[in-house]
């Protein structure tokens, strides 16, 4: 690779957008070419400064409230429609009502089966938990940045004692924990913050149902998985995939550090 080819690829490489072969040839080139290495370094410095100094704004409470209010209006409008239908069918005989009841029952069983099949996927379940927690006020049941406060709180409520690693060095601040239900069992959830992103980490005793490393995106939210330190770690967040994947690997290795 010469410097002309490299110039275009350096930014893509810094953004994690190069494939394995390109990554390898760029790395080789950067080692041998101080000019290109300096360009790469400048990009890394600029990124670091942007992430430190340029704020990522969060939706103000007033906006969130007004969006929720307009959803309520939409919900009421939707709920008003079937009620008119019921009034119209009030003259129906008992036999017809029983028929309706049977239909409703069939529908319940049908959706229960669909729910059960969807929930079979632990990653989807974890994302649902994460979304529910970040939407409501149940994100944190024990609020503390001290791992020695969070760990005993969780241990007292579970039949296992989850490790609570301090990840401050990596830029992840522990803000607390909660107990969730995952895969039909109570599960420790550690809550970290990186910049303005919330990261939920589901920690369970080794659960062999997931592949050893799973990385996927469910509804635009990333899920990364790792095993280690006698536990199964499932991290869920809207932070970028590479960041989340390396974070979960570090968590899994945490007690060997």
């Amino acid at each position, binding site marked *: 690779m010469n410097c002309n080819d490299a110039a*275009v690829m350096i930014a893509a490489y810094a953004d994690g957008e190069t494939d394995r072969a390109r990554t390898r040839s760029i790395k080789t080139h950067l080692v041998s070419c101080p000019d290109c290495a300096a360009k790469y370094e400048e990009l890394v410095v600029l990124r670091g400064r942007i992430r430190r100094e340029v704020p990522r704004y969060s939706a103000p409470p007033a906006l969130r409230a007004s969006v929720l209010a307009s*959803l309520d209006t939409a919900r009421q409008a939707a709920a008003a429609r079937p009620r008119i239908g019921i009034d119209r069918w009030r003259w129906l005989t008992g036999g017809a009502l029983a028929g309706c009841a049977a239909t409703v029952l069939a529908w319940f069983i049908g959706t229960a089966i669909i729910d059960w099949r969807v929930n079979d996927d632990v990653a989807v379940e974890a994302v649902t938990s994460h979304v529910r927690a970040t939407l409501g006020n149940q994100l944190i049941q024990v609020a503390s940045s001290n791992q020695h406060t969070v760990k005993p709180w969780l241990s007292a409520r579970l039949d296992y004692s989850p490790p609570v690693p301090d990840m401050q060095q990596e830029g992840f601040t522990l803000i607390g924990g909660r107990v969730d239900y995952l895969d039909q069992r109570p599960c420790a959830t550690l809550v970290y913050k990186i910049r303005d992103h919330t990261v939920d980490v589901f920690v369970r005793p080794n659960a062999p149902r997931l592949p050893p490393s799973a990385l996927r995106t469910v509804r635009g939210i990333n899920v990364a998985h790792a095993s280690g330190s006698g536990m199964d770690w499932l991290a869920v967040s809207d932070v*970028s995939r590479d960041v989340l994947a390396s974070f979960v690997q570090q968590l899994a290795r945490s007690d060997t550090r």
Partner: protein
Amino acid sequence: MSDVKRFEALVLPHLDSAYNLARWLTRDSQDAQDVVQDACVRALKYLGSLERSDARAWFLAIVRNAFYDWVGRNRPAEIVHDEDAVDAAVDAASSSPEQAAVRNAELRVLSDAVAALPVQYREVLILRELEELSYKEIASIADIPVGTVMSRLARARALLQRSPLLHAIRGQSTRSAS
């Protein structure tokens, strides 16, 4: 699942991302809230076109469209459709030392420099650096080819790096650290 439930499950988790994008595009808190509110109404209406996997990119594309409609109504002068004209204006501003000095005197911090970028560069930079989206996602949100995402990002970064402010602040921070 009802539309409202689907909206709560798929779209609402990305309200911060939506506001952040709108806030950087409009550069004003109240205007950003108006844009996001409008985008939510549209998102609820067109929820049928959403596939599960890319709710964030889908919603951000709607926010961006809502912004461009808003800006067309409120600040039409801000939008320059011709890419070359944007480049020319930026080059002219930075090639004249007096103008550059005036401009840079107004920029106290890096976030001001980002806010001063032309909107086409600002949006790709925000989506990449603050929302951490991939080139492909940015391309679909901004409705441009991946090659254009790369060239706009490169221009945005070059403009920030060229800004003397960056060096001034770097000098200050090393001084205060020593």
